[in-house]
């Protein structure tokens, strides 16, 4: 079909712009350096020597929301922290993704009480939930890879806001 057959073995690959852009996004996703509680320590482990998340193009943690694509909500979100978290999310440029790391960020975890937001999806839209208290670094990496799968299937028209 089409151009590949005509050109023969010239080392040319055809693809769509969408696929290329999504491929590029998954290989250089910059997470925000933003730890809340216990899970942040496991997030640090995932960045450090043994697990080395930079294998997935994620060695660059940006402390500024303006420069990051991915927010990893690592830990319990208190009612005092929730507005701050939302503001950080709003400050991130599009396109942006959120991983809820750990049980507390996903659903409140063991803390079913007055102080903790019962799942960060009350505050920001979440793409991937990672279970565990705290999740092992492998689990976080699996969550990130799952997010990459999602990003690879994204369509441009879905990203355009009406």
């Amino acid at each position: 079909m089409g151009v590949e057959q005509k050109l023969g073995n010239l080392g040319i690959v055809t693809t769509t712009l969408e696929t290329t852009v999504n491929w590029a996004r998954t290989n250089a996703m910059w997470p925000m350096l933003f730890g809340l509680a216990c899970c942040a320590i496991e997030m640090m482990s995932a960045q450090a020597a043994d697990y080395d998340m930079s294998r997935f193009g994620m060695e660059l943690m940006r402390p500024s929301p303006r420069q990051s694509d991915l927010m990893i909500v690592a830990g319990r979100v208190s009612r005092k922290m929730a507005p701050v978290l939302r503001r950080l999310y709003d400050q991130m440029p599009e396109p942006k993704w959120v991983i809820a790391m750990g049980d507390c960020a996903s659903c409140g975890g063991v803390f079913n009480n007055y102080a903790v937001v019962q799942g960060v999806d009350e505050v920001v839209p979440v793409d991937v939930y990672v279970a565990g208290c705290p999740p092992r670094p492998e689990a976080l990496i699996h969550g990130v890879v799952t997010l990459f799968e999602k990003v690879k299937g994204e369509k441009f028209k879905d990203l355009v806001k009406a």
Partner: protein
Amino acid sequence: MSEYQLQEIPVGPYRHLVSERAVSGETMLLNMGPQHPSTHGVLRLLLELDGEVVVNCIPDIGFLHTGVEKNMEAKTYQKAEVMTDRLDYMNNMGNNLAYVMAVEKLVDLDVPPRAQALRVILTELQRIASHLVWLGTSGLDLAAMSMFLYCFREREIILDIFELVSGQRMMVTYFRPGGVWRDVPVEFEAAVRNFIKIFPKRIDEYEALLTKNPLWLDRMVGIGKLDAATALQHGVTGPMLRASGVNWDLRKTRPYAGYEQYDFNVPVETKGDTYARYIVRVQELRESLKIVEQALNKLPLGPVHSDNRKFVPPPRSEIGTSMEALIHHFKLWTEGFPAPKASVYSAIESPRGELGVYLEGDGGPKPYRVHWRTPSFDNLSVISKIVKGHLVADLIAILASTDIVLGDIDR
């Protein structure tokens, strides 16, 4: 865009906390945190700055308030223990120990010697793991990136040991009232011996990189001086207090869990600056390793939990054959054990200082009141005094040297 433009912080609500110069606009108020890589969590510092010099520093805490104490009051004594892991998340074994010691004191339960020795080994390993995170992250704050990678490499070995004994890397819940959860597996001794063998060389490596490094010295010597009197006034404990020349370590002054049997030194420095705190903590790494080695050599054989069936669940093998054991098991896991109407306080030396638990029983299976005396809270209270007159960059070094954990402060 206008909504998120840099906004000047109004002096109004902070009028009573800042100097006169802030009111006239001579100095500037600046927010640091709650999302900042060097606040080691979600701490907000309101800074009053004269150029780059810190005039006032007002900590604003509570961004990680979790309601742990209230949650614990709604659970039985056994089930409340899972909450303790999540308080000071660098010192999970230590939190477990402080809590189970309080429960044991409340219900008057004795612990067999093997369990005591295991507790000592594991809390000392936890102290090393905690200091490693501190060393790695404060190295990161002062632009020594490689320290972070080295320290986490060694920390993984300790976490593997924890996983071996409890099944979890961080939230271990391994110590239980009356002993420990189960006996350690056979691989435990070899794993700890391996760590004892390799770790001293690794400490030498860290020291070779940092202790005499001119950049490290420039950033640390003479920065954030804390004198002993101020430290005592503010209730500062742990390595911060010992770096200011006060020889106070609960493992020596009020021994618990059999610490009096072990031979170790308490490192004390007199300068009280950021560098002194670094030296104290690095020495503690070596001392903790000494304790681990002694405890492992002397590790007695025998049961790992008390055989008082009113408080400790029976082994699985008994439940099938003994009616009593079945009843005890059922009572313990449905109702819990009742504790007398009394109040106790028990404290341990955590990596950050005196970690205390106040427990009040009301005769039922749930605590009436639980309160935690957490070292980071008191250690942070002194920060506004010791950063005055230093540069913002020095504030980073000082904050790193206090080794605060926000989960410990906000609870």
